[in-house]
Every structure is written in C-alpha cells, then in structure tokens.
C-alpha cells in the first residue's frame, strides 16, 4: 500500500495496465511529453514510447473516432479528452457509434476502448472547463460510465475499464485530483464496474452521489450527525450500469433518498435514479426522492461557481426538508 492522490492512482493504474498488455495505448492532446495538463499520464511517454503514448493533433472527434478504429482493429486505446467542455465535440462518435458497433455487427465487432475525461467544477477553471456532462453519456445505450471518488477506486476502475470488453467512459473529478488522498494497493486490481460503495452507514436518510459530490455528502452527513440525524452515503462509482441492488437497499433501509450531483437537475442522471427508486421502492419511502443539483442554467464563470454547484449546506437543507416531509 502507498498513499496516493487521485492523479497518481490513475497514473499507476494506466502504467500497470500498459505493462501487462501491449495492446493498451494512451492517446490525446498533450498526454505524451507533457504528461497531460493534469499530469495524469506523467512518465508514460518516457516508459512506453511514442507509439503507445501519443500526442495527437488537436481534434477531439478525431481522437475518439480513431480510438473506435484502433479498438476494433485489436488495440486497447485509452483516449483522453482534455476537458469535459470539449467532450460534446465527440458526441457524434460516442452517441452514434461506439456503443452501437457490437450490436450493429451482430456481435462480430467490439469496441474495447476507454474514454477518459476530467469532470466537474470548483477548481476556478476557465469557461467550458467545469462541466458535468455525464447524463448525455449515461443516456446513450451500449456504453458504460464510471466516476470514482477515491484514489483506491480510481486505480481499480481504470484497470477494470481497460479490461472491459465494451466501451467505458471514465470521468475523473478535477476537484479531487490532488485533494483526494488514500491508501492504494501496489499490485494491479479491479474495482468491479456496476458496484456501488457504501461510504458511510446511516439509518435516517440516504445521500446518493458520485465523484467530488460524494465528499460534499460526507461533509453534509457530519453536519446532520451533529443534529442527531444519521445519514447513509452511497458512492455509486459506476453510473451505467447502475448498482440497482445497492440503491434500492439503502433507499428501502432509510426510507428517504436524496441524490446530489453537479449537473443541472433537469434530465440529469439524478432524475433517472429518482425515477428508479420511485418505481421500485415507492411503498418503502417516507418522503419523495429529492434531487440536489445545479441550477438549470449554464455553468457560470468561476466567481459564481460555488453558488451554482450544490455544497454541503444545500445538501443539509434538502435533507432536513426531506426528513420533515
């Protein structure tokens, strides 16, 4: 075990996956010599050379499209889209192709690729650098979407994503890149895709989340605890396919569910989770399922981001309202 931050954990996972499988390659803007703008691919160029760690031309759609071809052609591409705000440029490939090729070819072709991208706000980044576009991807059939909140899961999920036979979108919460630290096993391991993590046990209300917002939920749970309220926190880790068993287990246990996330609420992944809980656990619920997301407006420039993305205070308030329903 070594104490790593999230950047180091993803880096170690990539390195170990590349060491054990020669088909694994990393491509994207500035991922080579520069080691990525967040340094996630630091040292990989030196270790594995320019054929396996590729500084691509500046063309996001091209990066994803060629990754589809590389994956179908027998490689295991891990492509990086430098910022979440540049991800929409790739949606033609993501929505129309990567998740459909297995089915369209009647199982003859597969696309075992990973698309990595930073996720979320609160690092005082410029415009279009703080987005939470997961709903567009989770809505798309045929792909898997994961988003770790701890270094341990970050490493286990990147290895699992690379080994997965289908395309996986891997979101890295920027706010946690250096802030999240934890003990990470030195050996390669997989964190299973599709399995949530119970981050804190409780009995009165379930706070369900992913990415950086998990930490705001834990903070909210501490505040609620001082008021004598016992909150359970579920870290989804995988957004598609959802761990429905874990979601229903916590919702049924506490009878109150709140889903916190960084994206605008309307049409969000929180809305989908809320619908699932309502459809499958209605009679176990003591209150309506609550979504706590950003406002339904575009991400503002960073001076106002703390008023846009929910903080622990907004989660606490929503939890109190749910408890007093």
């Amino acid at each position, binding site marked *: 075990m070594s104490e790593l931050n999230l950047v180091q954990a993803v880096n170690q996972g990539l390195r170990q996956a590349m060491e054990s499988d020669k088909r694994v390659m990393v491509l994207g803007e500035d991922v080579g010599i520069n080691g990525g703008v967040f340094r996630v691919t630091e040292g990989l160029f030196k270790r594995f050379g320019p054929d396996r760690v590729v500084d691509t031309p500046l063309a996001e759609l091209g990066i994803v499209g060629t990754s589809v071809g590389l994956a179908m052609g027998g490689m295991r591409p891990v492509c990086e889209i430098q910022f979440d705000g540049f991800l929409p440029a790739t949606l033609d490939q993501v929505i129309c192709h990567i998740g459909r090729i297995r089915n369209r070819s009647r199982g003859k072709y597969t696309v075992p690729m990973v698309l990595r991208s930073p996720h979320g706000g609160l690092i005082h980044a410029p415009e279009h650098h703080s987005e939470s576009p997961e709903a567009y991807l989770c809505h798309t059939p045929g792909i898997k979407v994961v988003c770790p909140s701890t270094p341990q899961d970050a490493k286990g999920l990147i290895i699992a994503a690379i080994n997965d036979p289908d395309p996986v979108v891997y979101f890295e919460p920027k706010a946690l890149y250096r802030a999240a630290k934890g003990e990470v096993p030195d050996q390669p391991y997989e964190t299973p895709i599709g399995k949530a993590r119970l981050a804190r046990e409780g009995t009165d209300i379930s706070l369900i989340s992913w990415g950086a917002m998990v930490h705001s939920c834990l903070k909210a749970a501490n505040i609620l605890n001082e008021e004598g309220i016992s909150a359970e926190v579920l870290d989804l880790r995988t957004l598609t396919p959802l761990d429905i068993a874990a979601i229903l287990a916590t919702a049924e246990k506490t009878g109150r569910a709140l889903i916190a996330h960084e994206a605008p609420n309307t049409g969000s992944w929180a809305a989908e989770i809320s619908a699932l809980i309502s459809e499958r656990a209605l009679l176990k619920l003591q209150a309506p399922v609550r979504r706590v997301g950003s*406002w339904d407006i575009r991400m503002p420039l960073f001076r106002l981001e703390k008023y846009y993305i929910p903080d622990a205070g907004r989660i606490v308030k929503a939890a109190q309202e749910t408890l007093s329903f």
Partner: protein
Amino acid sequence: MPLSTISESKTQRLEILGPDGKADPSIPVDISESELLDIYRKMVEMRLFDERAIKLQRQGRLGTYPQILGQEASQIVPPLCLKPSDWMVPTYRGQGAYYARGMQLRYSLLYWAGDDRGVHFPEGNKDMIFSIPVGTHLTQAAGLAWAAKLKKEDSIALAYVGDGSTSKGDFHEALTFAGQFRLPVIYLIENNHWAISVPRKKQSASTTLAEKASGYGIFGLQVDGNDALAVYQAVGSAVARARLGLGPSVLECETYRLGHHTTADDATRYRSAQEVEAWKKKDPITRLRKYLESRKLWNAQEESKLKTESEAMIQAEIDAYESFGAPNPLNMFSDNYASAPWHLIEQRAQLEKLLKARKSQHEALELPPVEGRFP
C-alpha cells in the same frame, strides 16, 4: 493515358520588415503615419498589460490567464483593418484583438477573473465572445459572413484561429462553407507553433497551413506574423477582396508563443530555451520600433513617454477592475431566455432565499444590485 497535371497550387509568403526593421521597398504599404504609431502604441500597451496580468495571477488576483506575448502584431493589427460593423471573432487568446477593437482592459481582467461581467464590448461593435473550446467559432464566423452577404451589407467577418485548431473538423467545415458560398470571411491563422505542448510540425503533415486553403477554392497566403506591416498589408487586401464580393481568405500569420500556454502551463517541460531565444530575435515590437525609428517617427524619448503613460493607463484599468467587487450571484439567472420559464423563476427564488439565510447566519454579504434581464 499518361498522368497529367490537372491542378497546381502554390503558396506564397509575405514579408515586408526584416529583423533589422528595414522595409522591403518593392511592396508599398498604404498606411498613414498615425496608423503606424497607433499600431505600435497598442502593441506596447498590450505587452505591458500582459506582464501585469501575469503578476496579478501569481499574486492570486486573477484566474488562469493566456498571454499573447510575442503575438502582438498578429493580434493587434487585424482589427485595425476592420470597421466596427464587421464581425471580429477571436479565440480564447484574444485580449489583444479586443483591445484593438476598443474594449477596455478592465473587462479582459474581469473575464479571466471568472466574472461574466467581463464580456463587455464597446457599443456598436460586432465582437464575438471569447471562444474557449477551440475551432467551434469558425463555422459561426462563416454564418455571420453569410448573413451579411444575404442582407447585402458590405460588412465582413474576421475569425482568428490557432495552428492547433486547424486540425479540427470545424476548420474543414468552415472552409468548405466559406469557399462554396464565397463568403466575405477571413480566417486568420495565428500559427504560434505550439498547441499547448504539441508543436506545429506534429499537428499536421502539411508543409504550411496557408496551403490548406487551396483545397477549398480559397485564397491562401502565409504572412510573417511578427511583421506588423505584412500583417496590415495582407489583412487589408483580404478585407478589400471580401468587401468586393471576391470571397474568403486564409492568412497564416507565422508567429511564436513566447510565453506558456496559460499561467496553468509550464512550457519548459516540452520545448527548448534555444528555440524561444531564437524567436525573441524576431520580436514584432522591436522590429516595428526599428522601422519607426528609421523613418524618424519614433525615438527613445517617445518610447520612455509611452511606457510611462501605458503603465499609468494599465494601473488605472487594474484599479477599475478591482473596484468591481463581487457580482450578485443572482446575475446567473439573468438573460438565459428572452422570457424565463417557470423552473428558472422557481430556482432563482430558491437561490435568493438561500443567500438571505446565509447572510443572516454567517456571511456578512452585502450584495450589489442584480444585473441583466429577468424574467
């Protein structure tokens, strides 16, 4: 049938000022002395501003900031060839272009401090907002030019684009439309040789970026982008052609990003100091100053006066920027729709309530008035 040549394209390059500041007399440049001095002053002001902005960022008084250091000629000169009614469509590295269009520097600072109030163009200007995702503004510029053409206006559009952005599909699509509809649009490629850490030669196998134009039936020209006179001449001609309905142009201004990509970058990780030093010798400001001195339009005394005055002006802009204070968080909800729908009315009320509750709790928050239109 033997192979036959069915099309030939050649790419030309325009240079007027040598590194010593001597102008090639064979290319007459139609520019007045006052215009020349205006260009020079603005280039110097921009450089001094850049230096101050970097310091502000290092002191935590500004967010991530992209310098234009070294690109002053290709930034400042093109807008001076336009009318306010022409569209100016910048990239994210566009403070110089905005400044040349008359936007006060305080607003550039405000924008890079993460404040939406920084988007503030002079009244009557057709300026596009900073384009942060690269290349997405290029088809928009074609559309802006298209609208002007359809409305039979004589206005045109000039879009900046980096060398990296020419790799994007957007560039291909923009040039396809511009060429096909013979739109009055100019694509000014600021080839500063580095797309963050990726050098120009790794961006495309094409020898030049200017020659890409010919594949779309568009006029293309490479220009010494550190030569203010050449940029002026090339953009001026392209503007004239566009206004006459003779179609679009691609101008590759070859320049160099002397600074880091932004304050969040460390260029020493991926490029050599020797390369940077070599480009410093082609500095656009030094070259123009030598030229002006050779024409007796400038001297050391003028230079020192300009520096003093510029520093005072920049300080005043910084003071004005810092006196803006925090924006009202409710500004977020203004101007999202012509008429706000129910859920935004509801959510804005929630935020207002939240702000009031927090104010009474712990935040001694005195909020300025809300700006913008709502509902």
